[in-house]
């Protein structure tokens, strides 16, 4: 049993912050250009379903985190190997988000600050947050995450004067396949990434709330992303939108009379910060469970250091990062986000049927 507990609303906000993560600066599903809204709806719906799969896994294995579930359902050896792969995946995810963050800040806000400095300082703060424990993270989410939709709303309302409401036309100019592709990308980024939350679900104080909390957060984030998309396309037009590196930032620049682009930075700090913290937490936690170390806090420093190095190591430049995220990430994530969880769900259902009280120690 987990000693630390977070409430339903805290989990909801943490999930929301996680889902916004780097989506708030990248604008997902842009591959579909004008039809991105369609891709967002499709991907959002699939994402909601996928997250319910994670919920089902967690509910079928009450008060067990991902590593325990893996070991129990797949046997100790296979379970451990897959768990180690997951740890790698979480670390990699954290490093990708760190890199997104670094690229954004270094492109937009501090162009002459070396990226590694930006990333390292950010990571340092996040290690502190993670070491403070999941309850603190939960409260942090409660305090900060509501700012993200608020800022989005402020920006959207401020530029409502610059308008071309038919900009999203024509519908399906290039057929369905780019839409489906973008929808798949949107499922794997960000919805599938919430697999990391399988390490957090056991902390929820009321299990019966889990389903609704997860459902609501997925739906809310889809709605916000759609709003952001329509705002961006109305303001920028599809051509410029697909050309720009950080779309929401560009539209925030167009607010007449005042300059509130730092608000986008704040969004990223909050969303990205929560996402990275959750990933580092999940990785450290999983690693400590596998190796039988009593406290995950001993490993956060090392893992975070590795994340920072990996984020710099990973890509030569921002274009490599974007192309990789768009082309490779969905396929790379597929086993972690979809295949293994589905397998786990299946195994959980079978074992549940066999012996309802099957419980192992640890």
């Amino acid at each position, binding site marked *: 049993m987990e000693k630390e507990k977070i409430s339903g609303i805290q989990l909801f906000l943490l999930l929301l912050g996680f889902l916004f993560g780097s989506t708030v600066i990248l604008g997902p599903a842009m591959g579909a250009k004008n039809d991105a809204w369609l891709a967002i709806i499709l991907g959002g719906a699939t994402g909601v379903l996928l997250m319910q799969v994670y919920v089902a896994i967690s509910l079928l294995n009450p008060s067990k985190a991902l590593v325990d579930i893996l070991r129990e359902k797949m046997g100790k050896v296979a379970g451990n190997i897959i768990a180690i792969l997951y740890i790698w995946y979480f670390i990699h995810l954290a490093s990708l988000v760190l890199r997104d963050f670094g690229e954004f800040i270094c492109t937009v806000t501090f162009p002459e600050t070396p990226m590694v400095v930006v990333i390292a300082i950010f990571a340092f703060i996040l290690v502190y947050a993670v070491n403070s424990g999941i309850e603190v993270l939960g409260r942090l989410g409660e305090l900060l995450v509501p700012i993200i939709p608020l800022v989005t709303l402020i920006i959207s309302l401020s530029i409502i004067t610059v308008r071309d409401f038919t900009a999203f036309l024509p519908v399906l100019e290039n057929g369905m396949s780019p839409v489906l592709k973008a929808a798949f990308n949107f499922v794997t980024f960000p919805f599938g990434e919430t697999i990391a939350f399988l390490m957090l679900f056991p902390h929820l104080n009321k299990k019966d709330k889990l389903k609704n909390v997860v459902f609501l957060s997925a739906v809310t984030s889809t709605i916000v992303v759609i709003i952001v998309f329509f705002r961006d396309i109305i303001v920028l037009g599809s051509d410029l939108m697909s050309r720009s590196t950080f779309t929401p930032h560009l539209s925030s620049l167009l607010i007449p009379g005042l300059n509130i682009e730092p608000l986008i930075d704040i969004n990223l700090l909050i969303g990205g910060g929560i996402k990275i913290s959750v990933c580092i937490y999940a990785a450290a936690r999983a690693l400590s469970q596998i*190796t039988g*170390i009593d406290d995950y806090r*001993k490993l956060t*420093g090392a893992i975070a250091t590795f994340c920072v190095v*990996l984020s710099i190591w990973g890509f030569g430049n921002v274009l490599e990062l974007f192309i990789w995220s768009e*082309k*490779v990430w969905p396929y790379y994530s597929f086993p972690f986000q979809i295949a293994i969880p589905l397998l786990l769900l299946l195994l959980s259902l079978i074992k549940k049927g066999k012996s309802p009280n099957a419980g192992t120690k640890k």
Partner: protein
Amino acid sequence: MAIVLAVFAVLIFYDLKEFIRKKEPARVFVIYFLFMAASLAVSLLLAAGRRPSSPAQWIEALLKMIGVMQ
């Protein structure tokens, strides 16, 4: 280069002090140094201006090998 070494020295010194004080089991040290050594090695290579091929590229190559991507 010197800065990288200095940063790592400070980090490791700080953590080790805690570990030794609390008399941690050996596996903590092993895992800790696994991560730190990997980070340090890569950082030194990066600082020297020689970027080793990254995990992102390995994964891409792997996926291409399996045939998921073209």
